């Protein structure tokens, strides 16, 4: 497959592994956080950790949009279905995320709620056109990558005068979250979590460009390498990060030049700027309230804002007792540090969001990597 196979070649992987071994200094540790779930998934699916020397470790970050959504937002979406009888359109990953009171969207659907899995915002618009006497809400989540399609949906709905369509906006912003992690006491003061460098998001950066990371690379003295989602991308980027650390540099470098530019996708950016504006603060699972880390629907489109159209009581939901998702999302704990991991919390019966999405650290550990854990602990 063109443009895919080239980035999964075994021989190149071996060469890169050798180069990393040469470059990595035996005397120091390299803890590299991959922000994105896409990287986490690639690392496990292709067994990238196997090719790394022992002192190069991947720390899994909070870049899975499903995982960082607080329980309360799912409760609120469920409220829309149950109390307002809307057709709720959502991406598939969200269906199984546990909400309060042992509910989830998939259980609400089984109980008769009209929850529909869609593949794009266009599907949701189509459902709205086909059901003019029903309220149709699109459950919008995701980082900067999924925001432009939501922007397009808002513009289309407004242009068409689609009266029964609205959007429940949960779009969040990557740079604010990375900055929040770096500012957390565990990283900054206590030093209990060491993160020496970052793999920058690939798809997100194709929209926002590499420029937004420049501030915190400088401010926090951590190198960032924008990395593609293929396993060779991850390895090449690891090499670039190790090199920067060895040379004492803290720059934003771009490994994913085939897609990402410094400025990003201007057209997508202007679409988003036209329809969304910053929220003063938004709750992230694991990070708590993070200032200016999310988007809300802008003036001019407020008629399409589900939060304005419907009264939604604010949920005060708490995580399941014992669930370590918050600490895992901050990189402060590993999935295997959680008492629930693999006992009561499995992909079949997830207690926390990290076990739901294939990009969640817990699900990735469980599906691809759990056999490795006992060996590592005893070593």
């Amino acid at each position, binding site marked *: *497959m063109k443009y*895919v196979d080239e980035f*999964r*070649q*075994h021989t190149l*992987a*071996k060469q890169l*592994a050798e180069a990393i071994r040469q470059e990595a200094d035996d005397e120091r540790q390299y803890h590299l956080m991959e922000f*994105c*779930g*896409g990287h986490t*998934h690639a690392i*496990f*699916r*292709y*067994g*990238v*950790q*196997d*090719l790394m020397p022992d002192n190069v470790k991947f720390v899994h970050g909070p870049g*899975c*949009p*499903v995982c960082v959504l607080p329980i309360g937002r799912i409760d609120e979406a469920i409220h829309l279905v149950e109390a307002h009888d809307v057709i709720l359109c959502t*991406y*598939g*990953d969200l*269906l*199984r995320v546990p909400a309060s009171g042992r509910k989830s969207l998939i259980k609400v659907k089984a109980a008769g709620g009209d929850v529909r*899995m*869609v*593949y794009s915002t266009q*599907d949701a618009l189509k459902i709205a056109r086909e059901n003019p006497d029903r309220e149709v809400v699109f459950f919008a*989540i*995701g*980082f900067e*990558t*999924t925001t432009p399609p939501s922007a397009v949906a808002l513009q289309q709905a407004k242009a068409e005068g689609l009266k029964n369509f609205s959007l429940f906006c949960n779009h969040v912003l990557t740079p604010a979250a990375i900055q929040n992690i770096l500012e957390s006491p565990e990283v900054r003061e206590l030093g209990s979590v060491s993160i020496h460098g970052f793999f920058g998001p690939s*798809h997100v950066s194709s929209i926002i460009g590499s420029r937004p990371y420049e501030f915190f690379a400088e401010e926090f003295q951590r190198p960032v390498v924008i990395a593609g989602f293929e*396993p060779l991308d991850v390895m090449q980027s690891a090499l670039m990060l190790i090199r920067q650390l060895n040379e004492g540099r803290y720059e934003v470098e771009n490994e994913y030049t085939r897609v990402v530019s410094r400025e990003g996708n201007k057209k997508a950016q202007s679409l988003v700027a036209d329809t969304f504006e910053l929220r003063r603060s938004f709750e992230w699972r694991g990070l708590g309230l993070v200032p200016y880390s999310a988007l809300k629907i802008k003036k001019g489109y407020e008629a399409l804002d589900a939060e304005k159209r419907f009264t939604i009581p604010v949920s005060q939901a708490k995580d399941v007792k014992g669930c370590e998702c918050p600490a895992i999302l901050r990189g402060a704990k590993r999935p295997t540090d959680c008492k629930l991991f693999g006992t009561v919390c*499995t*992909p*079949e019966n997830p207690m926390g969001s990290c076990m739901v*999405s*294939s*990009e969640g650290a817990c699900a990735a550990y*469980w*599906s*691809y*990597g*759990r*056999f490795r854990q006992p060996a590592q602990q005893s070593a």
Partner: protein
Amino acid sequence: MNAVVKRFPLRLDTKGARVDMTHGSGGRAMAQLIEELFLKHFDNELLRQGNDQAAFDVSAGRMVMSVDGHVISPLFFPGGDIGSLAVHGTLNDVAMSGARPLYLSAGFILEEGFPLADLDRIVASMGQAASEAGVPVVTGDTKVVEKGKGDGVFITTTGIGVVPQGIDISGDRAVPGDKIIVSGSIGDHGVAIMSSRENLEFETTIESDSAALHKLVDKMVETAPDIHCLRDPTRGGLATTLNELAMQSGVGMRLLESDIPMKAAVTSACELLGLDPLYVANEGKLICICSPEDAERLLPIMQADPLGRDSRIIGTVVEDEHHFVQMETLFGGSRVVDWLSGEQLPRIC
């Protein structure tokens, strides 16, 4: 031919009419549906007797019986439809014991309003699949449910067959050292289905691999009567089926990703949808686990059959108290190939 009065003065309208509640009520409308639609396509002596059951003689020996319900959406897809699938699926379940399938039954649950033209097309396809396989549908049942209580048509088929002397194929017989063979490229059926789902249409040349495998199995057991396990990797795909077998036999497995046959179009489609082809359904493939010597003997026999042309050894059975299926990736690392959990959902980011 007896010069009897025509039982049904007006022929069944299989062009424009639709299933209604009378077609399941046991009256004249149902009799006409059976005679002019089901009997037309399934025609065989046992069915023509018109009894509520089929009676037949069987040879001495071990018999197998298997049942399979079919609820697929969409009903028609590239490379097949619910009708041919209902025949192939059950024949394969019977054949995976090494048995020769003898007879099939078919139960239909029809939704009120379902076009008779579609039903005619589906039953014709079933009839053709059964006749190609040489296994007749000898008894059946039809029920109609009110509109909104079904999804067009559901078909349940049962098959029975007889196992040749000396064959003992079972999911708990894999032992360390055994080889794992797959009979061809994986993921074709699932991708063909997804390509024709209403909200997911994408263009692909991939067709479902839906096929009856019992003739291939016949040749295999003739060549290697001591085959340990056979199973068709349908729902949940290759990964889930191998995990089932590893669990049942109390063993582990090691696969080589580079040896797993996969069509480029399937890999591409899965890449696009964020799916893992190892978990995508097949309807015309089998997994065979046997001794290394038998594997050497079987491969050329399988490859000489059109349904096994791309057969490959993809791995080895190993000792493993955790019963993990592990795979050496193309990339050079290794990963656990776990059970499928939930539905395979497309990734969103």
